[in-house]
């Protein structure tokens, strides 16, 4: 299982996947907001989303897991 980390501190603007979704490498799963800018977070490998850790409006730090992919 791979944990996808936020990579930067910011607010969760948009969650694009839900548990059970199949995702492809490079696919954007969450969009963060920082300084009025939308910054997408993508998964590195194909897989299935087993857990979404964040909700829209949450504040995340760079090392926080945002989704788990199996």
């Amino acid at each position, binding site marked *: 299982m791979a944990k996808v980390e936020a990579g930067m501190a910011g607010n969760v*603007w948009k969650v694009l996947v839900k548990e059970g979704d199949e995702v492809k490498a490079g696919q954007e799963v969450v969009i963060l*907001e920082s300084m009025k800018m939308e910054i997408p977070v993508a998964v590195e490998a194909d897989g299935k989303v087993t857990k979404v850790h964040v909700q829209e409006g949450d504040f995340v730090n760079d090392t926080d897991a945002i989704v788990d992919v199996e």
Partner: protein
Amino acid sequence: MFTKVLIANRGEIALRVIRTCQKLNIQTVAIYSEADADALFVREADEAYCVGKPPVNQSYLNAEEIIAIAKKSGAEAVHPGYGLLSENASFATRCINEGLTFIGPSPNIIASMGSKIEARKTMKEAGVPIIEGINTSLESEDEAKLAAKEIGYPLMLKASAGGGGIGMQLVNSEEELVKAFAGNKKRAESFFGDGAMFLEKYIAEPHHIEVQILADSHGNVVPLWERECSIQRRNQKVVEEAPSPFINEETRNKMLEAAIKAAQHIGYTNAGTIEFLVDREQNFYFLEMNTRLQVEHPVTEEITGLDLVEEQLKVASGAKLSFTREDVTRNGHAIEVRIYAEDPKTFFPSPGKITEFKLPEGEGIRNECAIEAGSQVTPFYDPMIGKLIAWGQTREEACSRLKRALEDYKIEGIKTNIPMLIKTVSHEQFLKGYTTTQFVNEYYLPLLTSTK
């Protein structure tokens, strides 16, 4: 004039404000998070206080702590910089209630310009052209569909509490509008605490051109010409210049007049920027008003010879502007590029430690930067690490000086957007002076795939 000012910001803008304060013999108070303890702006301030942990909501957005520090240090005024608390009406109100001068307009103006629907209504009353659209909050999908039919697609669906590059979506058809509406409304509710949504007609090939104004508390409003900021990625500016190479003198004059009308109508004070979208035919429309100092203010300073922070401090202390519109002459051409710690292909932030660092020098070159070799670019804040500004007698001269300076910019240890900036400022389309907000998509990104 003030004797001591607290700067409620960090990085290059904190340092920028400190420099002007030093020039005016004003004592400076910096605030910093634990992540910024070793930063240059902290050392340059006369006093510095730790305001909390690295995340902004525990430090630079902690209004209570910031005000407590201001009072403890004996500061008389607070300069909010840009971003962070600079457009937070309740912070401005709290400063005033605590007897501190907030260096910016009054809280009610910040609030009314922060609501995009309210701002549209106000500008319409002022006689400033607005984009065809609706000025009330859309409560339901059906209401949105009806309004959309009247205006016609394509449209921008926007959150009233959004702004900058956040909270807007292009919709090309009723199907897309229906698909986007509920989610965007809910997101605006949870994110901004305000779910008000509205629609604006989509302007094709828009230029983003804004007018800088200064206003004192005696009713004087002076425009400081315009800036063209069309080159953006993720709806955020990366290259800004003054004057705009696109508009003609007639349009320029009309835009400056509109900006004066806007500022006078709302009784604006301090430095502010009225942003417009300008279409192919040079029709211009109000986009939003930024009630603070802008990141790109140096290009205006370069062509006018004014120090905008100095003017902000003066008008905030109650002084009259010492010049009129006619006095503000335009000299040469200035271009600014924002240096970001980010991947030049994906634009994803690239934090890390800067191992080697040397700023470029040369005639007409100015740097606004608060980092040095050994600085850590943390993931907690905006990844902009500095701004490089080039001035020339002509646009051609400014372009060539800027390109040379970018090539001389020495920064190691992190990825930066400098390669992207070099490609941009040497691109034929940029040199021609016709840039729209689609520049990165149309001209820069295709370069990457063609050279792979």
